[in-house]
Protein backbone atom coordinates (compact mmCIF):
# COMPACT_ATOMS: atom_id res chain seq x y z
CA UNK A 1 0.00 0.00 0.00
CA UNK A 2 2.65 2.46 1.04
CA UNK A 3 4.42 2.03 -2.28
CA UNK A 4 1.25 2.99 -4.16
CA UNK A 5 0.93 6.20 -2.20
CA UNK A 6 4.53 7.14 -2.95
CA UNK A 7 4.05 6.55 -6.64
CA UNK A 8 0.95 8.72 -6.84
CA UNK A 9 2.66 11.59 -5.06
CA UNK A 10 5.61 11.45 -7.41
CA UNK A 11 3.40 11.33 -10.46
CA UNK A 12 1.61 14.50 -9.44
CA UNK A 13 4.72 16.50 -10.20
CA UNK A 14 5.70 14.74 -13.38
CA UNK A 15 5.78 16.95 -16.47
CA UNK A 16 3.06 16.37 -19.04
CA UNK A 17 3.68 13.30 -21.10
CA UNK A 18 5.70 13.90 -24.23
CA UNK A 19 4.68 12.72 -27.69
CA UNK A 20 6.56 9.47 -27.20
CA UNK A 21 4.21 8.49 -24.39
CA UNK A 22 1.11 8.89 -26.54
CA UNK A 23 -0.80 5.64 -26.99
CA UNK A 24 -0.40 3.93 -30.32
CA UNK A 25 -3.01 5.22 -32.81
CA UNK A 26 -4.35 1.68 -33.22
CA UNK A 27 -4.85 1.22 -29.49
CA UNK A 28 -8.42 1.92 -28.45
CA UNK A 29 -8.39 4.87 -26.00
CA UNK A 30 -11.64 3.62 -24.49
CA UNK A 31 -11.01 -0.07 -23.81
CA UNK A 32 -7.28 -0.48 -24.49
CA UNK A 33 -7.68 -3.15 -27.18
CA UNK A 34 -4.96 -3.05 -29.79
CA UNK A 35 -5.46 -3.79 -33.47
CA UNK A 36 -3.45 -4.28 -36.60
CA UNK A 37 -4.06 -1.65 -39.26
CA UNK A 38 -5.76 -4.08 -41.67
CA UNK A 39 -8.10 -5.28 -38.98
CA UNK A 40 -9.09 -1.70 -38.13
CA UNK A 41 -9.61 -0.76 -41.78
CA UNK A 42 -11.81 -3.83 -42.27
CA UNK A 43 -13.85 -2.72 -39.26
CA UNK A 44 -14.21 0.83 -40.67
CA UNK A 45 -11.95 1.92 -37.80
CA UNK A 46 -14.56 1.07 -35.22
CA UNK A 47 -13.37 -0.87 -32.19
CA UNK A 48 -15.03 -4.32 -32.46
CA UNK A 49 -14.81 -4.64 -28.70
CA UNK A 50 -16.33 -1.38 -27.42
CA UNK A 51 -17.62 0.46 -30.52
CA UNK A 52 -15.20 3.38 -30.13
CA UNK A 53 -14.96 5.30 -33.41
CA UNK A 54 -11.32 5.95 -34.35
CA UNK A 55 -10.54 8.95 -36.58
CA UNK A 56 -10.77 8.29 -40.33
CA UNK A 57 -8.59 10.02 -42.92
CA UNK A 58 -10.33 11.70 -45.88
CA UNK A 59 -9.43 9.14 -48.55
CA UNK A 60 -10.37 6.22 -46.34
CA UNK A 61 -13.69 7.89 -45.48
CA UNK A 62 -14.48 8.25 -49.16
CA UNK A 63 -13.66 4.56 -49.68
CA UNK A 64 -16.01 3.70 -46.82
CA UNK A 65 -18.87 5.83 -48.13
CA UNK A 66 -18.67 5.95 -51.93
CA UNK A 67 -19.39 3.12 -54.37
CA UNK A 68 -16.13 1.60 -55.49
CA UNK A 69 -14.43 3.43 -58.34
CA UNK A 70 -16.95 6.28 -58.50
CA UNK A 71 -14.94 9.01 -56.76
CA UNK A 72 -13.28 11.57 -59.02
CA UNK A 73 -11.34 14.17 -57.08
CA UNK A 74 -11.66 17.84 -57.96
CA UNK A 75 -9.41 20.83 -57.21
CA UNK A 76 -6.66 18.65 -55.72
CA UNK A 77 -4.15 21.23 -56.91
CA UNK A 78 -5.22 23.97 -54.47
CA UNK A 79 -2.62 24.96 -51.90
CA UNK A 80 -2.60 27.44 -49.04
CA UNK A 81 -0.74 30.68 -49.43
CA UNK A 82 0.63 32.65 -46.53
CA UNK A 83 -1.10 36.03 -46.91
CA UNK A 84 -0.17 37.21 -43.42
CA UNK A 85 3.39 35.88 -43.50
CA UNK A 86 2.38 34.25 -40.26
CA UNK A 87 5.12 33.25 -37.87
CA UNK A 88 4.60 32.01 -34.33
CA UNK A 89 7.30 29.75 -33.00
CA UNK A 90 7.52 28.41 -36.56
CA UNK A 91 6.55 29.73 -39.97
CA UNK A 92 3.11 28.82 -41.34
CA UNK A 93 4.70 27.81 -44.64
CA UNK A 94 6.87 25.33 -42.74
CA UNK A 95 3.85 23.87 -40.96
CA UNK A 96 2.09 23.52 -44.32
CA UNK A 97 4.96 21.64 -45.92
CA UNK A 98 5.21 19.36 -42.92
CA UNK A 99 1.47 18.68 -42.92
CA UNK A 100 1.50 17.83 -46.61
CA UNK A 101 4.45 15.47 -46.17
CA UNK A 102 2.83 13.80 -43.19
CA UNK A 103 -0.66 13.42 -44.65
CA UNK A 104 -0.01 13.33 -48.41
CA UNK A 105 -2.91 15.76 -48.68
CA UNK A 106 -2.79 19.25 -50.20
CA UNK A 107 -4.98 20.62 -47.41
CA UNK A 108 -7.60 19.60 -44.85
CA UNK A 109 -10.40 18.80 -47.31
CA UNK A 110 -10.98 16.56 -50.34
CA UNK A 111 -13.85 17.21 -52.74
CA UNK A 112 -15.12 15.43 -55.83
CA UNK A 113 -17.98 13.64 -57.53
CA UNK A 114 -19.05 10.17 -56.42
CA UNK A 115 -22.01 7.84 -56.03
CA UNK A 116 -23.27 6.53 -52.70
CA UNK A 117 -25.48 3.43 -52.95
CA UNK A 118 -25.77 4.21 -56.67
CA UNK A 119 -27.06 7.78 -56.10
CA UNK A 120 -24.77 10.31 -57.80
CA UNK A 121 -23.65 13.06 -55.46
CA UNK A 122 -20.86 15.49 -54.69
CA UNK A 123 -18.75 14.85 -51.59
CA UNK A 124 -16.59 17.11 -49.42
CA UNK A 125 -14.62 15.31 -46.74
CA UNK A 126 -12.36 16.86 -44.12
CA UNK A 127 -9.08 15.39 -42.94
CA UNK A 128 -8.31 16.06 -39.27
CA UNK A 129 -4.74 14.86 -39.73
CA UNK A 130 -3.93 17.97 -41.78
CA UNK A 131 -3.38 20.72 -39.19
CA UNK A 132 -6.30 19.59 -37.07
CA UNK A 133 -8.71 19.84 -39.97
CA UNK A 134 -8.50 23.61 -39.67
CA UNK A 135 -10.38 25.73 -42.21
CA UNK A 136 -8.33 28.25 -44.14
CA UNK A 137 -8.76 29.68 -47.64
CA UNK A 138 -8.25 26.33 -49.38
CA UNK A 139 -10.87 24.49 -47.33
CA UNK A 140 -13.31 27.36 -47.83
CA UNK A 141 -12.67 27.47 -51.57
CA UNK A 142 -12.92 23.70 -51.98
CA UNK A 143 -16.18 23.56 -50.06
CA UNK A 144 -17.63 26.45 -52.11
CA UNK A 145 -16.62 24.64 -55.31
CA UNK A 146 -18.23 21.42 -54.09
CA UNK A 147 -21.49 23.34 -53.59
CA UNK A 148 -21.21 24.85 -57.07
CA UNK A 149 -20.49 21.47 -58.72
CA UNK A 150 -23.42 19.92 -56.89
CA UNK A 151 -25.70 22.72 -58.12
CA UNK A 152 -24.38 22.45 -61.71
CA UNK A 153 -24.88 18.70 -61.77
CA UNK A 154 -28.20 18.85 -59.91
CA UNK A 155 -27.03 16.37 -57.28
CA UNK A 156 -26.97 16.53 -53.47
CA UNK A 157 -23.83 17.34 -51.49
CA UNK A 158 -22.62 15.00 -48.76
CA UNK A 159 -20.33 16.84 -46.34
CA UNK A 160 -18.22 14.99 -43.77
CA UNK A 161 -16.54 17.25 -41.22
CA UNK A 162 -13.75 16.79 -38.67
CA UNK A 163 -12.20 20.07 -37.66
CA UNK A 164 -10.80 22.07 -34.79
CA UNK A 165 -12.14 25.27 -36.39
CA UNK A 166 -10.74 28.15 -38.39
CA UNK A 167 -7.01 28.17 -39.22
CA UNK A 168 -5.47 30.85 -37.02
CA UNK A 169 -2.43 31.16 -39.28
CA UNK A 170 -4.60 32.77 -41.95
CA UNK A 171 -5.93 35.31 -39.47
CA UNK A 172 -9.07 37.20 -40.41
CA UNK A 173 -9.20 35.48 -43.82
CA UNK A 174 -9.86 32.18 -42.07
CA UNK A 175 -12.81 33.78 -40.26
CA UNK A 176 -14.09 34.92 -43.66
CA UNK A 177 -14.36 31.27 -44.72
CA UNK A 178 -17.38 31.03 -42.41
CA UNK A 179 -19.58 33.45 -44.41
CA UNK A 180 -18.01 32.18 -47.63
CA UNK A 181 -19.08 28.58 -47.02
CA UNK A 182 -22.47 29.73 -45.68
CA UNK A 183 -23.12 31.71 -48.88
CA UNK A 184 -22.11 28.67 -50.95
CA UNK A 185 -24.57 26.40 -49.11
CA UNK A 186 -27.32 28.99 -49.59
CA UNK A 187 -26.61 29.17 -53.33
CA UNK A 188 -26.83 25.36 -53.49
CA UNK A 189 -30.12 25.36 -51.60
CA UNK A 190 -31.51 28.11 -53.87
CA UNK A 191 -30.74 25.89 -56.86
CA UNK A 192 -32.92 23.19 -55.33
CA UNK A 193 -29.97 21.17 -54.10
CA UNK A 194 -29.75 19.35 -50.78
CA UNK A 195 -26.89 19.03 -48.32
CA UNK A 196 -26.40 16.12 -45.98
CA UNK A 197 -24.07 17.03 -43.11
CA UNK A 198 -22.22 14.17 -41.43
CA UNK A 199 -20.26 15.37 -38.41
CA UNK A 200 -17.39 13.24 -37.16
CA UNK A 201 -15.23 13.77 -34.10
CA UNK A 202 -14.47 16.60 -33.61
CA UNK A 203 -16.56 19.20 -35.45
CA UNK A 204 -15.99 22.39 -33.53
CA UNK A 205 -15.72 26.19 -33.61
CA UNK A 206 -15.68 27.79 -37.07
CA UNK A 207 -16.78 24.71 -38.98
CA UNK A 208 -19.68 24.01 -36.62
CA UNK A 209 -20.57 27.73 -36.73
CA UNK A 210 -20.83 27.67 -40.53
CA UNK A 211 -21.56 25.07 -43.19
CA UNK A 212 -21.58 21.96 -40.99
CA UNK A 213 -24.66 23.24 -39.13
CA UNK A 214 -26.59 23.99 -42.32
CA UNK A 215 -27.29 20.47 -43.57
CA UNK A 216 -30.84 19.66 -44.65
CA UNK A 217 -30.23 16.50 -42.68
CA UNK A 218 -27.80 16.55 -39.75
CA UNK A 219 -26.05 13.33 -38.80
CA UNK A 220 -23.27 12.71 -36.27
CA UNK A 221 -21.08 9.78 -35.38
CA UNK A 222 -21.44 8.43 -31.83
CA UNK A 223 -19.22 10.02 -29.23
CA UNK A 224 -18.14 12.88 -31.46
CA UNK A 225 -17.52 16.31 -29.91
CA UNK A 226 -19.72 18.90 -31.62
CA UNK A 227 -19.18 22.17 -29.82
CA UNK A 228 -18.59 25.81 -30.70
CA UNK A 229 -16.21 26.00 -27.73
CA UNK A 230 -14.48 22.87 -26.47
CA UNK A 231 -14.77 21.61 -22.87
CA UNK A 232 -11.30 22.74 -21.79
CA UNK A 233 -11.85 26.38 -22.76
CA UNK A 234 -15.39 26.45 -21.33
CA UNK A 235 -14.05 25.05 -18.06
CA UNK A 236 -11.18 27.55 -17.92
CA UNK A 237 -13.28 30.57 -18.88
CA UNK A 238 -16.41 29.98 -16.85
CA UNK A 239 -15.29 27.54 -14.12
CA UNK A 240 -18.68 25.92 -14.62
CA UNK A 241 -19.10 22.27 -13.78
CA UNK A 242 -19.39 20.49 -17.10
CA UNK A 243 -21.90 17.72 -17.63
CA UNK A 244 -20.27 14.39 -18.40
CA UNK A 245 -21.50 14.37 -22.00
CA UNK A 246 -20.70 18.06 -22.58
CA UNK A 247 -20.76 18.90 -26.30
CA UNK A 248 -20.99 15.28 -27.39
CA UNK A 249 -23.28 14.07 -30.17
CA UNK A 250 -25.45 12.38 -27.53
CA UNK A 251 -25.98 15.72 -25.78
CA UNK A 252 -26.57 17.53 -29.07
CA UNK A 253 -29.30 15.13 -30.15
CA UNK A 254 -31.03 15.54 -26.80
CA UNK A 255 -31.01 19.34 -27.15
CA UNK A 256 -32.41 19.15 -30.67
CA UNK A 257 -29.39 20.03 -32.79
CA UNK A 258 -29.15 16.74 -34.69
CA UNK A 259 -31.45 14.50 -36.68
CA UNK A 260 -29.64 11.30 -35.86
CA UNK A 261 -26.55 9.67 -34.42
CA UNK A 262 -25.50 6.99 -36.85
CA UNK A 263 -22.75 4.47 -36.17
CA UNK A 264 -20.12 4.17 -38.86
CA UNK A 265 -21.15 0.65 -39.84
CA UNK A 266 -24.64 1.95 -40.67
CA UNK A 267 -23.53 5.25 -42.17
CA UNK A 268 -23.34 4.30 -45.84
CA UNK A 269 -26.80 2.68 -46.06
CA UNK A 270 -28.25 5.52 -43.96
CA UNK A 271 -26.81 8.25 -46.19
CA UNK A 272 -27.94 6.25 -49.23
CA UNK A 273 -31.48 6.10 -47.89
CA UNK A 274 -31.53 9.86 -47.26
CA UNK A 275 -30.07 10.59 -50.71
CA UNK A 276 -32.75 8.46 -52.37
CA UNK A 277 -35.45 10.48 -50.62
CA UNK A 278 -33.97 13.70 -51.97
CA UNK A 279 -33.55 12.44 -55.54
CA UNK A 280 -36.43 13.48 -57.77
CA UNK A 281 -37.54 10.12 -59.09
CA UNK A 282 -37.23 8.41 -55.73
CA UNK A 283 -35.28 5.62 -57.45
Amino acid at each position, binding site marked *: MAEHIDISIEHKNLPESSNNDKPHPNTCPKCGSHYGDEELVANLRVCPHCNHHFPVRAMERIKQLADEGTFVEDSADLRSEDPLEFFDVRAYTERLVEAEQKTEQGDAMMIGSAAIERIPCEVSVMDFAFMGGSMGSVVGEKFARACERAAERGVPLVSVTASGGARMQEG*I*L*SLMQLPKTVCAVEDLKDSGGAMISVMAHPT*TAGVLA*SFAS*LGDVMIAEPGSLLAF*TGPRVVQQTTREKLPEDFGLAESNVR*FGHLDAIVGRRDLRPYVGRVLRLFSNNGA
Partner: protein
Amino acid sequence: MARDTELHLRDRLSRLKSLGLLRGASISGELARLQRQLERTSAPTDEEIWKHVELARHVDRPYTLDYVERMFEDFVELHGDRTRAEDPAMVAGLGRFGGRTVALLGQQKGRDTHERIRRNYGMTYPEGYRKAMRVMDLAERHRFPIISLVDTPGAYPGVAAEQHGQGGAIARSQALMSRLTIPIVACVIGEGGSGGAIAIALADRVLMQENAMYSVISPEGCAAILWRDGGEKVKAAAALKPDAVHCLELGVVDAVVPEPEGGAQTNADEAARLLGEALQSSLEDLSAIPGDELRRRRRARFRSLGVYASSTASTELSTEAASARK
Protein backbone atom coordinates in the same frame (compact mmCIF):
# COMPACT_ATOMS: atom_id res chain seq x y z
CA MET B 1 -2.02 44.50 -51.97
CA ALA B 2 -0.78 47.67 -50.35
CA ARG B 3 -1.39 49.38 -53.67
CA ASP B 4 -5.08 48.41 -53.60
CA THR B 5 -5.40 49.91 -50.15
CA GLU B 6 -3.93 53.08 -51.43
CA LEU B 7 -6.28 53.14 -54.41
CA HIS B 8 -9.19 52.47 -52.13
CA LEU B 9 -8.28 55.30 -49.81
CA ARG B 10 -7.66 57.64 -52.72
CA ASP B 11 -11.05 56.73 -54.09
CA ARG B 12 -12.66 57.48 -50.76
CA LEU B 13 -10.68 60.65 -50.44
CA SER B 14 -11.86 61.93 -53.81
CA ARG B 15 -15.45 61.06 -52.93
CA LEU B 16 -15.12 62.94 -49.67
CA LYS B 17 -13.64 65.90 -51.49
CA SER B 18 -16.67 66.07 -53.78
CA LEU B 19 -18.94 65.73 -50.78
CA GLY B 20 -17.04 68.53 -49.16
CA LEU B 21 -18.07 70.84 -52.00
CA LEU B 22 -21.68 70.19 -51.14
CA ARG B 23 -21.52 70.17 -47.38
CA GLY B 24 -18.96 72.80 -46.65
CA ALA B 25 -16.13 72.72 -44.18
CA SER B 26 -17.56 70.20 -41.67
CA ILE B 27 -15.85 67.40 -43.46
CA SER B 28 -12.39 68.89 -43.67
CA GLY B 29 -11.32 67.23 -40.42
CA GLU B 30 -12.05 63.86 -41.91
CA LEU B 31 -10.22 64.79 -45.10
CA ALA B 32 -7.13 65.59 -43.12
CA ARG B 33 -7.40 62.33 -41.24
CA LEU B 34 -7.84 60.30 -44.40
CA GLN B 35 -4.86 62.06 -45.86
CA ARG B 36 -2.87 61.01 -42.80
CA GLN B 37 -4.28 57.51 -43.12
CA LEU B 38 -3.11 57.41 -46.70
CA GLU B 39 0.34 58.44 -45.61
CA ARG B 40 0.56 55.56 -43.21
CA THR B 41 -0.96 52.84 -45.35
CA SER B 42 2.41 51.30 -45.03
CA ALA B 43 1.65 48.48 -42.62
CA PRO B 44 1.51 49.44 -38.93
CA THR B 45 4.32 48.23 -36.71
CA ASP B 46 3.84 45.51 -34.08
CA GLU B 47 3.55 48.15 -31.36
CA GLU B 48 0.98 50.10 -33.38
CA ILE B 49 -1.08 46.93 -33.86
CA TRP B 50 -1.12 46.35 -30.11
CA LYS B 51 -2.13 49.98 -29.55
CA HIS B 52 -5.15 49.37 -31.81
CA VAL B 53 -6.06 46.31 -29.75
CA GLU B 54 -5.91 48.37 -26.55
CA LEU B 55 -7.97 51.17 -28.06
CA ALA B 56 -10.52 48.70 -29.43
CA ARG B 57 -11.02 47.46 -25.85
CA HIS B 58 -10.71 50.83 -24.12
CA VAL B 59 -13.14 51.03 -21.17
CA ASP B 60 -14.33 54.46 -22.29
CA ARG B 61 -14.83 53.51 -25.92
CA PRO B 62 -18.36 54.28 -27.14
CA TYR B 63 -20.56 51.18 -27.30
CA THR B 64 -23.52 50.40 -29.55
CA LEU B 65 -26.10 52.27 -27.45
CA ASP B 66 -23.81 55.32 -27.17
CA TYR B 67 -23.90 55.54 -30.96
CA VAL B 68 -27.62 54.77 -31.17
CA GLU B 69 -28.36 57.61 -28.78
CA ARG B 70 -26.37 60.03 -30.95
CA MET B 71 -27.24 58.80 -34.46
CA PHE B 72 -30.87 57.64 -34.21
CA GLU B 73 -34.13 59.44 -33.60
CA ASP B 74 -37.14 57.73 -32.01
CA PHE B 75 -35.22 54.56 -31.24
CA VAL B 76 -37.38 51.72 -29.97
CA GLU B 77 -35.49 48.78 -28.54
CA LEU B 78 -36.93 45.33 -29.17
CA HIS B 79 -36.36 42.56 -26.65
CA GLY B 80 -36.38 38.79 -26.57
CA ASP B 81 -35.95 35.99 -29.09
CA ARG B 82 -39.65 34.96 -28.90
CA THR B 83 -38.53 31.45 -28.03
CA ARG B 84 -36.63 31.31 -24.82
CA ALA B 85 -34.94 34.40 -23.45
CA GLU B 86 -33.80 37.99 -23.66
CA ASP B 87 -30.06 38.41 -24.18
CA PRO B 88 -28.86 41.87 -23.04
CA ALA B 89 -25.49 41.32 -24.80
CA MET B 90 -27.30 41.83 -28.13
CA VAL B 91 -29.23 45.02 -28.77
CA ALA B 92 -31.88 45.17 -31.49
CA GLY B 93 -34.39 47.80 -32.40
CA LEU B 94 -35.92 50.22 -34.87
CA GLY B 95 -35.19 53.89 -35.22
CA ARG B 96 -35.06 56.82 -37.63
CA PHE B 97 -31.70 57.20 -39.28
CA GLY B 98 -31.10 59.68 -42.08
CA GLY B 99 -34.83 60.37 -42.27
CA ARG B 100 -36.03 56.79 -42.63
CA THR B 101 -36.73 53.75 -40.48
CA VAL B 102 -33.75 51.46 -40.07
CA ALA B 103 -33.31 48.24 -38.07
CA LEU B 104 -30.34 48.21 -35.69
CA LEU B 105 -28.40 45.22 -34.41
CA GLY B 106 -25.33 45.32 -32.21
CA GLN B 107 -23.54 43.79 -29.30
CA GLN B 108 -23.51 45.83 -26.13
CA LYS B 109 -20.87 45.84 -23.38
CA GLY B 110 -21.44 47.35 -19.97
CA ARG B 111 -19.93 50.51 -18.55
CA ASP B 112 -19.79 49.62 -14.83
CA THR B 113 -19.42 46.27 -13.06
CA HIS B 114 -23.14 45.71 -12.65
CA GLU B 115 -23.85 46.59 -16.25
CA ARG B 116 -20.91 44.54 -17.52
CA ILE B 117 -22.24 41.46 -15.80
CA ARG B 118 -25.77 42.13 -17.03
CA ARG B 119 -24.50 42.53 -20.59
CA ASN B 120 -22.19 39.52 -20.16
CA TYR B 121 -19.24 41.66 -21.39
CA GLY B 122 -20.84 41.76 -24.84
CA MET B 123 -20.62 37.98 -25.22
CA THR B 124 -23.77 36.82 -26.96
CA TYR B 125 -25.76 33.67 -26.20
CA PRO B 126 -27.59 31.82 -28.99
CA GLU B 127 -30.71 33.64 -27.79
CA GLY B 128 -29.04 36.93 -28.75
CA TYR B 129 -28.43 35.73 -32.30
CA ARG B 130 -32.01 34.47 -32.45
CA LYS B 131 -33.22 37.89 -31.37
CA ALA B 132 -31.10 39.42 -34.14
CA MET B 133 -32.58 36.96 -36.66
CA ARG B 134 -36.11 37.78 -35.58
CA VAL B 135 -35.43 41.47 -36.17
CA MET B 136 -33.77 40.73 -39.54
CA ASP B 137 -36.96 38.95 -40.60
CA LEU B 138 -39.00 41.92 -39.49
CA ALA B 139 -36.71 44.31 -41.38
CA GLU B 140 -36.96 42.22 -44.55
CA ARG B 141 -40.75 42.25 -44.46
CA HIS B 142 -40.94 46.01 -44.00
CA ARG B 143 -37.99 46.85 -46.28
CA PHE B 144 -36.03 48.51 -43.48
CA PRO B 145 -32.29 48.62 -44.18
CA ILE B 146 -30.14 47.06 -41.45
CA ILE B 147 -27.28 48.68 -39.57
CA SER B 148 -25.22 46.19 -37.60
CA LEU B 149 -22.63 47.34 -35.06
CA VAL B 150 -20.13 44.66 -34.10
CA ASP B 151 -18.46 44.82 -30.68
CA THR B 152 -17.85 41.51 -28.93
CA PRO B 153 -14.88 39.59 -27.50
CA GLY B 154 -16.67 36.54 -28.94
CA ALA B 155 -19.77 34.40 -28.59
CA TYR B 156 -20.18 33.25 -24.98
CA PRO B 157 -18.28 30.02 -24.24
CA GLY B 158 -20.55 28.43 -21.62
CA VAL B 159 -22.39 25.18 -20.96
CA ALA B 160 -25.88 26.61 -21.50
CA ALA B 161 -24.74 28.45 -24.64
CA GLU B 162 -23.54 25.15 -26.09
CA GLN B 163 -26.68 23.32 -25.06
CA HIS B 164 -28.81 26.01 -26.68
CA GLY B 165 -26.90 25.65 -29.95
CA GLN B 166 -24.25 28.38 -30.15
CA GLY B 167 -22.61 27.02 -33.32
CA GLY B 168 -25.90 26.48 -35.13
CA ALA B 169 -27.19 29.92 -34.14
CA ILE B 170 -24.09 31.63 -35.56
CA ALA B 171 -24.37 29.60 -38.76
CA ARG B 172 -28.07 30.31 -39.19
CA SER B 173 -27.71 34.01 -38.49
CA GLN B 174 -25.17 34.23 -41.32
CA ALA B 175 -27.39 32.11 -43.57
CA LEU B 176 -30.32 34.45 -42.96
CA MET B 177 -28.19 37.52 -43.72
CA SER B 178 -27.15 35.92 -47.01
CA ARG B 179 -30.84 35.58 -47.96
CA LEU B 180 -32.04 39.11 -47.16
CA THR B 181 -32.88 41.47 -50.01
CA ILE B 182 -32.58 44.70 -48.05
CA PRO B 183 -29.37 46.74 -47.75
CA ILE B 184 -27.15 45.73 -44.82
CA VAL B 185 -24.24 47.80 -43.55
CA ALA B 186 -22.06 46.46 -40.74
CA CYS B 187 -19.34 48.29 -38.86
CA VAL B 188 -16.86 46.84 -36.41
CA ILE B 189 -16.86 49.50 -33.67
CA GLY B 190 -14.63 47.80 -31.12
CA GLU B 191 -13.79 44.12 -30.87
CA GLY B 192 -14.73 42.00 -33.86
CA GLY B 193 -14.35 38.71 -32.01
CA SER B 194 -14.45 35.75 -34.35
CA GLY B 195 -17.66 33.74 -34.90
CA GLY B 196 -19.51 35.94 -32.45
CA ALA B 197 -18.79 38.90 -34.72
CA ILE B 198 -19.32 37.40 -38.17
CA ALA B 199 -22.75 36.15 -37.04
CA ILE B 200 -24.05 39.70 -37.57
CA ALA B 201 -21.51 40.94 -40.14
CA LEU B 202 -22.47 39.23 -43.40
CA ALA B 203 -23.30 42.60 -44.91
CA ASP B 204 -23.28 44.41 -48.27
CA ARG B 205 -20.76 46.89 -46.90
CA VAL B 206 -18.47 46.04 -44.04
CA LEU B 207 -16.86 49.04 -42.39
CA MET B 208 -14.37 49.18 -39.58
CA GLN B 209 -13.45 52.03 -37.28
CA GLU B 210 -9.85 53.16 -37.39
CA ASN B 211 -8.98 51.67 -33.98
CA ALA B 212 -11.24 48.63 -34.03
CA MET B 213 -9.96 45.08 -34.31
CA TYR B 214 -11.36 42.16 -36.27
CA SER B 215 -9.87 38.75 -35.65
CA VAL B 216 -10.42 35.01 -35.85
CA ILE B 217 -9.18 34.56 -32.28
CA SER B 218 -8.15 36.89 -29.47
CA PRO B 219 -4.41 37.60 -29.29
CA GLU B 220 -4.43 36.00 -25.81
CA GLY B 221 -6.14 32.83 -27.10
CA CYS B 222 -3.78 32.60 -30.06
CA ALA B 223 -0.74 33.05 -27.80
CA ALA B 224 -1.99 30.36 -25.42
CA ILE B 225 -2.35 27.87 -28.28
CA LEU B 226 0.62 28.61 -30.54
CA TRP B 227 3.14 30.00 -28.07
CA ARG B 228 1.73 27.98 -25.15
CA ASP B 229 1.98 31.23 -23.22
CA GLY B 230 -0.89 33.70 -23.02
CA GLY B 231 1.66 36.39 -22.16
CA GLU B 232 2.89 36.47 -25.75
CA LYS B 233 -0.24 38.39 -26.74
CA VAL B 234 1.63 41.29 -28.34
CA LYS B 235 3.49 38.92 -30.66
CA ALA B 236 0.27 37.05 -31.38
CA ALA B 237 -1.54 40.29 -32.24
CA ALA B 238 1.31 41.27 -34.57
CA ALA B 239 1.01 37.89 -36.30
CA LEU B 240 -2.80 37.98 -36.57
CA LYS B 241 -2.85 41.55 -37.95
CA PRO B 242 -6.35 42.35 -36.65
CA ASP B 243 -6.07 46.11 -37.33
CA ALA B 244 -8.21 48.07 -39.76
CA VAL B 245 -5.49 48.76 -42.35
CA HIS B 246 -4.65 45.06 -42.70
CA CYS B 247 -8.33 44.10 -42.87
CA LEU B 248 -8.80 46.69 -45.62
CA GLU B 249 -5.78 45.35 -47.49
CA LEU B 250 -7.13 41.81 -47.37
CA GLY B 251 -10.50 42.93 -48.74
CA VAL B 252 -12.25 41.91 -45.51
CA VAL B 253 -13.57 45.42 -44.91
CA ASP B 254 -14.63 47.91 -47.58
CA ALA B 255 -13.66 51.12 -45.81
CA VAL B 256 -12.09 52.41 -42.63
CA VAL B 257 -14.15 54.90 -40.62
CA PRO B 258 -12.00 57.61 -39.09
CA GLU B 259 -12.12 58.34 -35.37
CA PRO B 260 -11.36 61.54 -33.47
CA GLU B 261 -7.67 62.12 -32.81
CA GLY B 262 -6.50 59.74 -30.07
CA GLY B 263 -9.44 57.37 -30.48
CA ALA B 264 -13.24 57.31 -30.29
CA GLN B 265 -13.17 57.44 -26.46
CA THR B 266 -11.83 61.02 -26.54
CA ASN B 267 -14.96 62.42 -28.17
CA ALA B 268 -18.01 60.21 -28.52
CA ASP B 269 -20.06 62.92 -30.28
CA GLU B 270 -17.46 63.36 -32.99
CA ALA B 271 -16.97 59.59 -33.30
CA ALA B 272 -20.74 59.20 -33.74
CA ARG B 273 -20.84 61.96 -36.36
CA LEU B 274 -18.07 60.30 -38.39
CA LEU B 275 -19.65 56.85 -38.04
CA GLY B 276 -23.09 58.20 -38.95
CA GLU B 277 -21.72 59.82 -42.10
CA ALA B 278 -20.01 56.62 -43.19
CA LEU B 279 -23.11 54.50 -42.56
CA GLN B 280 -25.32 57.04 -44.34
CA SER B 281 -23.07 57.17 -47.39
CA SER B 282 -22.95 53.35 -47.58
CA LEU B 283 -26.72 53.10 -47.33
CA GLU B 284 -27.10 55.72 -50.07
CA ASP B 285 -24.77 53.72 -52.33
CA LEU B 286 -26.88 50.62 -51.81
CA SER B 287 -30.34 52.15 -51.97
CA ALA B 288 -30.62 52.07 -55.77
CA ILE B 289 -29.63 48.41 -56.15
CA PRO B 290 -32.55 45.98 -56.58
CA GLY B 291 -32.91 43.40 -53.77
CA ASP B 292 -32.05 40.31 -55.81
CA GLU B 293 -28.96 42.01 -57.16
CA LEU B 294 -27.94 43.14 -53.66
CA ARG B 295 -28.15 39.59 -52.41
CA ARG B 296 -26.22 38.25 -55.41
CA ARG B 297 -23.43 40.78 -54.92
CA ARG B 298 -23.37 40.21 -51.17
CA ARG B 299 -22.82 36.50 -51.66
CA ALA B 300 -20.26 37.12 -54.41
CA ARG B 301 -18.39 39.47 -52.08
CA PHE B 302 -17.91 36.77 -49.44
CA ARG B 303 -17.46 34.00 -52.01
CA SER B 304 -14.37 35.84 -53.26
CA LEU B 305 -12.57 36.11 -49.90
CA GLY B 306 -9.48 33.99 -49.46
CA VAL B 307 -5.97 33.67 -50.79
CA TYR B 308 -4.76 30.40 -52.26
CA ALA B 309 -2.64 29.02 -55.05
CA SER B 310 -3.15 26.29 -57.55
CA SER B 311 -0.39 24.50 -59.38
CA THR B 312 -2.20 25.01 -62.69
CA ALA B 313 -2.97 28.71 -62.35
CA SER B 314 -1.45 31.74 -60.73
CA THR B 315 -2.48 32.80 -57.26
CA GLU B 316 -6.03 33.99 -57.13
CA LEU B 317 -6.54 37.01 -55.01
CA SER B 318 -9.54 38.33 -53.27
CA THR B 319 -9.04 41.61 -55.10
CA GLU B 320 -10.09 40.02 -58.38
CA ALA B 321 -13.67 39.73 -57.28
CA ALA B 322 -13.46 42.94 -55.32
CA SER B 323 -13.25 44.81 -58.60
CA ALA B 324 -16.02 42.64 -60.07
CA ARG B 325 -18.22 43.80 -57.21
CA LYS B 326 -18.27 47.36 -58.51
